C-alpha cells in the first residue's frame, strides 16, 4: 500500500472517530444545510451509541450468515451433500432476491419490533455472497493438490481443515467482505422497525425535512463501509499472499 493510501485511510478513520464522538465540532459545516433554525447536528441521541449498535447488528448478522453459508458450502461440496447443491443454491438465492424491506414487513408480526426483524433481514441478505464464494473457493482447489493429500493418507476431515479451507480462505473472506458492506448499508432500514442504528439519523432527517441529518447518517455509514472494506481487504491479501497469488490492487 502506498504512503498516500495509508494517509488517506488514517485521515478517514480520524474523521469518523472525531465526528461520532464530538459531532458538535462539525456544526459549522452542516449549518448551511438547515433552515428555520433547525439543529445542524443530530440531537435525538448519541451518534456514537447509534454507530456502535449499527456495527453490532451488522457483525452479528454477518457472523450468522458466515456460519450457515460456509457450513452449507462445505456440506454441498462433500460427496454426501452434492445432491443438495441445487436446492441450497435456490434457497440462498431466494434470501438475496427477497427485498429486505419485505422481510421486515413479514418478520415484525412474527418476532415483534426492534433488532430481531433487522437481524433476520440482514442474515438472509448476506448469505448469497458468502455461500457462492465458499463454493468457488472449495471447488477451486487444484485436483492435484487434493490427489496428493489423499495419496499421503489424509482422511476427509484432515483434507478439509488442512488443505481445502486454508486454500479457499481468501475467496471466502472476499465473500464475507461483500456481505458486510451490503449489510452496513441495508441495516439503515432497520430503523423503520425500531432497531437502534444509523438509520435513525436518516429517518429523523427525512421526517423533519433536515438535509443535515440525512447527510450525517449517510456519511457515517459510508465512512464505515469504506474503512471496513479496506480493512477486510488487507486481511484477504495477507491470506492470499501466503498462497503465492497476491490479489491485484482492485481488492
Amino acid at each position: 500500500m502506498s504512503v498516500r493510501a495509508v494517509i488517506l485511510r488514517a485521515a478517514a478513520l480520524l474523521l469518523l472517530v472525531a465526528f461520532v464522538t464530538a459531532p458538535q465540532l462539525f456544526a459549522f459545516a452542516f449549518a448551511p444545510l438547515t433552515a428555520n433554525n433547525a439543529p445542524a447536528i443530530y440531537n435525538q441521541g448519541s451518534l456514537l451509541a447509534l454507530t456502535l449498535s449499527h456495527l453490532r447488528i451488522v457483525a452479528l448478522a454477518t457472523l450468522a450468515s458466515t456460519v450457515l453459508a460456509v457450513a452449507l458450502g462445505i456440506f454441498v461440496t462433500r460427496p454426501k451433500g452434492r445432491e443438495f447443491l441445487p436446492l441450497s443454491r435456490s434457497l440462498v438465492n431466494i434470501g438475496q432476491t427477497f427485498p429486505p424491506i419485505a422481510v421486515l414487513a413479514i418478520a415484525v408480526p412474527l418476532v415483534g419490533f426492534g433488532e430481531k426483524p433487522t437481524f433476520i433481514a440482514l442474515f438472509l441478505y448476506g448469505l448469497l455472497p458468502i455461500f457462492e464464494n465458499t463454493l468457488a473457493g472449495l471447488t477451486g482447489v487444484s485436483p492435484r493438490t487434493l490427489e496428493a493429500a489423499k495419496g499421503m493418507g489424509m482422511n476427509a476431515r484432515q483434507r478439509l481443515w488442512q488443505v481445502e479451507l486454508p486454500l479457499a480462505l481468501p475467496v471466502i473472506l472476499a465473500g464475507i467482505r461483500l456481505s458486510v458492506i451490503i449489510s452496513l448499508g441495508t441495516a439503515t432500514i432497520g430503523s423503520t422497525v425500531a432497531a437502534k442504528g444509523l438509520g435513525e439519523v436518516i429517518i429523523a432527517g427525512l421526517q423533519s425535512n433536515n438535509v443535515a441529518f440525512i447527510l450525517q447518517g449517510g456519511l457515517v455509514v459510508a465512512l464505515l463501509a469504506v474503512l471496513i472494506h479496506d480493512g477486510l481487504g488487507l486481511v484477504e491479501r495477507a491470506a492470499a499472499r501466503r498462497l503465492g497469488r497476491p490479489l491485484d490492487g482492485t481488492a
Partner: protein
Amino acid sequence: MIEIEHLSKRYGDNIVVDDVSFTIGEGEIAVVVGTSGAGKSTLLRMINRLVAPSAGRVLIDGQDTTTIPEDELRHRIGYVIQGYGLFPHRTVAENIATVPRLLGWDKKRIATRVEELLDLFQLDPGEFARKFPHQLSGGQQQRVGVARALAAKPALLLMDEPFGSLDPVIRGKAQDDLLAIQRRLGTTIVLVTHDMNEAFHLGDRIAVMDQARLLQYAKPADLLTHPAEAFVEQLVGTAERPFRLLSLMTVQDAMEPGHADGEPITVSATLRDALAQLIWRGRPVLPVADASGAPIGRISVDGILKHGRPLA
C-alpha cells in the same frame, strides 16, 4: 516385495485394467510403460487403493493391502504425481513434514528428518525450508515432491509421471538423482511413464501395458531381445534397439585383454557411450581404465557391436 495378483478394474462395461499380475522385488525399480489410456495410472492407484480394484489383490511383504486401513496404508507408501501437488499454503519444510505430522511424530524428530531430506536432495535447509512452493523452480519442486513422499521412510514409493513436467535437461539430472537416492535407501519403486528412454534408464524391470492388459514384464534387455508381442517391439522402437541394448551394458561386459593407445575409457561407462567415443575419435580400439585411472584392458568397435544384437 510387492505382489500384484490378478488386478482388474472395470467402470461399467469399460475395462481399464484387465487381470494384471506381476511381482516387484525388494529394492527394485519397476517401470510401467504404455500409451496413454493403457491403464498405467489406474494400476498404480490400485496399489495404494486410491482406486478400489474390481478384482484381484495386492500383497505388500505378504500382507494383503485390504487388511490395512486405507489411510494407514497410504502413510506407509510414498506417492509422487505429475505436477507434484505440493501444498501451496505450506512451506517446503511443512510440505515435507506432512506424513510425519499425520503420524504424530514429535517436533524434534520431524525437524531432524526434514533437514536430513533437504540435505539428501541438495536443497540447503537454511535457504529452502521456509520457502513456499511457488518460489521454487520446477526441478526444486520435483525434489520437494519426492522428499515429501519419502519423509516417513516408506518401503514403497509410487511415482506417476514424476518427471513429466520437467524440461529434458533437468529431467535427466532428476532421473540420475532419483537412481542415486534409490540405491542409497533401497526403496522399492513403481514408476509410471510413457517415455521409453526413462523406462530403460530407470527400470530394473519394465512392465509394458496396452489396452488394459500387461503384455510383458521383463528385464530391459529381455524386452529388447525377446519382445513378447509385436506391440512391445514397436514400442521399444526397432531402430533404437541396438543402442538401447548397448546402453544397458557397461564397458566391463565387452572388455578385451590387451593394450591400446589413447585416452582411456572408464570401465563403468555404458557401451553406448564407449561406442560414441570410438566413433567420434575415429579409433577402432581404446584402452580401458578402472576408477583410479589404471589401465586394465581395451575395448574395440567390433567387440561392442557384437553386444548390440541378441546373442544367438
